[in-house]
């Protein structure tokens, strides 16, 4: 293809400008792809942390208690897609720790759950970093790793828990968990349901039924079935519960895409400028080619191909550099940077659809930037071009 041959010659002849044009696209693609992958990773991390020991569907009363919760569980159990149902009693309390350095106290959330069910449904054991879960040992609690740090506690220590009803109970730290979600790890105390019921003086009731699904993203689909099974109780999905957080994450991602896309738009504009200059410098050559019988379409194709070569090479190099950076991140080379953000590593998640979208969008920007100078070159008459000084 002669147009490709001529386009390549033009590009190699103007190496400096070509490299600048390609660099623009390379930087734009790299910034956008890497940021998007990290943003996806962080969002995913955040959602996974939030969902770690939270219900995917929450069945509650909106403040009142569920008396016959066992019956409700029976009604729910036939629904397909449910991994488990955990009856829970949630309350507030003050935790007092007696350490070598003095007495410390902290306001905490008390989550009393059927630990046998929670082990299966929530994989509770996978979050334990010390100790074990004993569903029928009623004087032991599980506390978060951050709380351990704050209060200077260790496994086996005794703490005093005062409930909202001002009932005090001395409990042993039976396990330490880390979910990755700082609110849980710093302020949540997990205990057997019965212990929570006793300290709250409520009898055999639950404040909610936490439903864990095989796939959390089926929550909206299964909501109706759950609602039919529990009739008068309120049903909320994890999306409803965390709607503010999800909206914030979506907004943050949109703003980031818009801002970083500007780099690609500017890079596309640079290609347009380089081609425009090329057309001006090559005006006489265009006249010569036209005198040889090259058509307007031939001329237009030459400059569009030039734009696409510059843009395409920038995209390929940009993708290579993005994947190299992301691989280094995955290897944990920059994990030291994450400590202040309560992360063990920089989470990275590449979406193939987003990558394809970035490539198509960049090519479109490059194509649009190339069309104008290419058209300008092609509309010159042979005589105009030959007489150009």
């Amino acid at each position: 293809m002669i147009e490709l041959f001529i386009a390549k010659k033009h590009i190699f002849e103007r190496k400096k400008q070509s490299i600048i044009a390609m660099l623009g696209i390379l930087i734009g693609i790299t910034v956008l792809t890497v940021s998007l992958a990290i943003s996806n990773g962080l969002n995913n991390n955040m959602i996974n942390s939030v969902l770690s020991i939270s219900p995917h569907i929450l069945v509650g009363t909106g403040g009142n208690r569920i008396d016959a919760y066992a019956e409700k569980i029976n009604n729910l159990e036939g629904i397909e897609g449910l991994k488990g149902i955990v009856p829970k009693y949630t309350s507030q309390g003050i935790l007092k720790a007696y350490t070598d350095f003095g007495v410390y106290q902290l306001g905490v959330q008390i989550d009393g759950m059927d630990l046998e069910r929670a082990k299966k449904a929530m994989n509770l054991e996978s979050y334990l970093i010390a100790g074990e879960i004993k569903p029928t040992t009623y004087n032991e609690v599980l506390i978060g790793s951050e709380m351990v740090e704050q209060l200077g506690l260790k496994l086996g220590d005794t703490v005093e828990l005062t409930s909202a009803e001002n009932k005090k109970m001395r409990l042993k730290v039976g396990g330490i968990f880390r979910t990755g979600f700082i609110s849980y790890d710093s302020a949540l105390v997990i205990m057997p349901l019965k212990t929570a019921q006793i300290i709250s003086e409520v009898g055999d009731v639950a404040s909610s039924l936490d439903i864990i699904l095989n796939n959390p993203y089926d929550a909206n689909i299964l909501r109706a079935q759950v609602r039919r099974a529990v009739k008068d109780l309120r049903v909320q999905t994890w999306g409803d519960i965390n709607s503010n957080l999800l909206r914030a994450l979506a907004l943050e991602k949109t703003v980031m895409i818009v801002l970083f896309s500007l780099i690609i738009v500017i890079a596309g504009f640079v290609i347009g400028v380089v081609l425009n200059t090329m057309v001006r410098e090559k005006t006489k050559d265009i006249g010569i080619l036209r005198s040889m019988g090259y058509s307007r379409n031939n001329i237009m194709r030459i400059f569009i191909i030039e734009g696409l070569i510059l843009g395409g090479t920038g995209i390929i190099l940009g993708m290579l550099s993005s994947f190299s950076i992301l691989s280094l991140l995955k290897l944990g080379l920059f994990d030291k940077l994450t400590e202040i953000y309560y992360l063990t590593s920089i989470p990275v998640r590449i979406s193939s659809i987003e990558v394809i979208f970035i490539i198509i969008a960049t090519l479109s920007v490059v194509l649009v930037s190339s069309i104008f100078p290419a058209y300008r070159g092609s509309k010159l008459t042979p005589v105009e071009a030959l007489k150009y000084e």
Partner: protein
Amino acid sequence: MNKILELVNLIKHYKDKNKDLKIINELNLEVEEGDFIAILGKSGSGKSTFLHLLGMLDEANSGNIIINGKDVSFLPEKERDKLRNKFLGFVFQFHYLLPEFTALENVMLPALVDKNADIEKIKIKAKELLKSVELEDRETHKPSELSGGEKQRVAIARALINSPKILLADEPTGNLDEETSEVIHKILRKINEEKGQTIIVVTHSQELASVCKKKLYLKKGKLEDKR
């Protein structure tokens, strides 16, 4: 001899402020195959405009241009591009070689417009043409590495790559010294005599005109036999 080109009542005028400048005014010409014609005239007499019209690089205001029996005056642009590629070869005053291509590539360029062209065959022909202008050892040289005369010889080889019916030359030696011009004159005469190539040369050089078989003078937009 076959009539290869005919110009009938060709008119080209430009508007300059309120004046209507008739550069070519009802010009008539018949060219036969194998002709070697010099078009002479003063600077500004319209010689280049005449050649641009002939070469379908510019459009006349009225009149007809008949090439090889086909009236090309009102053909769509794409057709004109094709005809220009197949039937005409151009040599300009300044070599107009593309700077980033080698001599061989420059010669091949007009033939590569055809998508189905056999590149190997074109290359062989381009090499033969470079040899015919005694530049076989300069194939890989870029224009910046060639002398003025060499560049013009490459331009002649390029103009001949598609075996055009007519070779149009616009002051081909206008930018060369006497000795180098002599070489170009010889080449043009040789391709006319040996290959029967029809050549129309626009020039103000009497030396070049003396090599041609026929001289015509462009005066007041018309061609005349006498000075």
